[in-house]
């Protein structure tokens, strides 16, 4: 498998990269880790005229804690995120997710920004950012804007990022007290794309009731999406296995899986119910401090 022809540039600064994207709008494609894009190029499913490699652009791969939020650089690799203890302490879901993406080599090079901008409905990060109600910072030559994750994923391989923009940062809120989070992924084999993946976050109030819930689903619709009906149904309810089972059923009601080699749609719907309940259970036990 050999890619078609293209030009390649490696700008030394973000401004230069953004200038190129503006000047070559519609022709250029951003190259981050390459583990999403290169297979498409080799299969000749994508044939861009120009690849803009961001590896020499500094300052895009950091992980920073601010008073307001976590800021993960778009070029932070899955592995760098996996190994960040501070992030994992606050958001165990991050470690669940990063550790299950692809294989070690993929985690060494694949990036969170590349993964989210690529918007494969089967990749794992989008569901997490959706569940945590995070946002994406996008920069163009004209300026910067921040887009909420909810509303960002428009269709398969299609997001709200403009062709002249770079996804520079993923922002995640801080976890309130009594919050637990988990990502549970059902895969056919190690390194596989998810059959179903569920990102769950629960914040409990002092009485043990659910104050807020976030649920993001991977691989069961044309885009990753937030199971908003299930989230709403959980608020005010005592965190309990039965409620999680009910929430799983409601989440399945919003899923639109297709039959493929991972299994028939009927199975995937059942797995949305099952895996959602499991993810919520794990998130709740973490919120209670028992896991």
């Amino acid at each position, binding site marked *: 498998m050999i890619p078609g022809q293209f030009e390649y540039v490696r700008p030394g600064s973000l401004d230069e990269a953004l200038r190129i994207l503006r000047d070559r709008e519609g022709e250029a494609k951003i190259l981050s880790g390459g583990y999403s894009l290169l297979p498409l190029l080799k299969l000749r499913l994508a044939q861009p005229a120009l690849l803009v490699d961001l590896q020499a652009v500094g300052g895009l791969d950091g992980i920073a804690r601010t008073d307001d939020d976590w800021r993960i650089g778009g070029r932070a690799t899955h592995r760098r995120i996996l190994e960040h203890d501070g992030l994992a302490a606050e958001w165990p879901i991050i470690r669940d997710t990063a550790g299950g993406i692809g*294989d070690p080599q993929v985690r060494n090079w694949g990036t969170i920004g590349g993964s989210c901008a690529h918007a494969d409905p089967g990749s794992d990060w989008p569901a997490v950012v959706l569940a945590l109600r995070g946002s994406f910072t996008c920069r163009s030559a004209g300026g910067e804007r921040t887009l909420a994750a909810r509303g960002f994923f428009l269709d398969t391989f299609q997001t709200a990022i403009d062709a002249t923009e770079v996804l520079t940062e993923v922002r995640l809120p801080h976890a309130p007290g009594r919050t637990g989070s988990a990502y549970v992924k059902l895969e056919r084999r*190690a390194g596989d794309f998810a059959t179903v993946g569920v990102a769950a976050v629960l914040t409990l109030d002092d009485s043990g009731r659910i104050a807020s819930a976030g649920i993001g689903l991977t691989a069961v619709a044309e885009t990753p999406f937030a199971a908003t009906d299930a989230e709403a149904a959980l608020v005010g309810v005592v965190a309990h296995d039965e409620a999680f089972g009910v929430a799983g059923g409601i989440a399945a009601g919003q899923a639109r899986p297709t039959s493929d080699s991972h299994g028939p749609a009927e199975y995937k719907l059942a797995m949305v119910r099952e895996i959602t309940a499991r993810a919520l259970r794990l998130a709740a036990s973490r919120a209670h401090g028992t896991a």
Partner: protein
Amino acid sequence: MTTQHVSVTVNGAVREADVEPRLLLVHLLRDVFGLTGTHTGCDTSNCGACTVHVNGESAKSCTMLAVQANGASITTIEGMEQGGKLHPLQQAFWDQHGLQCGFCTPGMIMQSAWLLGTNPDPTDHDVREGIAGNLCRCTGYVNIVKAIQQAAAELRASEPEGAGAASA
């Protein structure tokens, strides 16, 4: 066809070439530099036969462009033997019968080397997780795990006194 100049350090030596931007790193190594120890097995970054180190990190060279590696330092299986002495992993794969047809072996050894660099004292499960991106069709992995553990023990033993503590 436009070409771009790439300069990489491969196994310690600077190598240069003018290449098409679309040239895959694995083809730069094999077809341009003649380092045929790195193999292609699946084309879709599932099998890991093409694993090399790029700036110290294991990478699948069939899923990286040669131009992406421009300026990088690359280690391939050909760079593992030093001064006529096999790398402990090479020796261990031989000792433990960790290979049969040998096709996945270079990638497997390179991935194992990366793994032991990040986790010098892995459990068997850690080892299996560490090589989950490298497929072997011959060995059933049992002896590969043994080989990696043999090399891990040897590398730990050969570490200078106190080096482990100092870095902890």
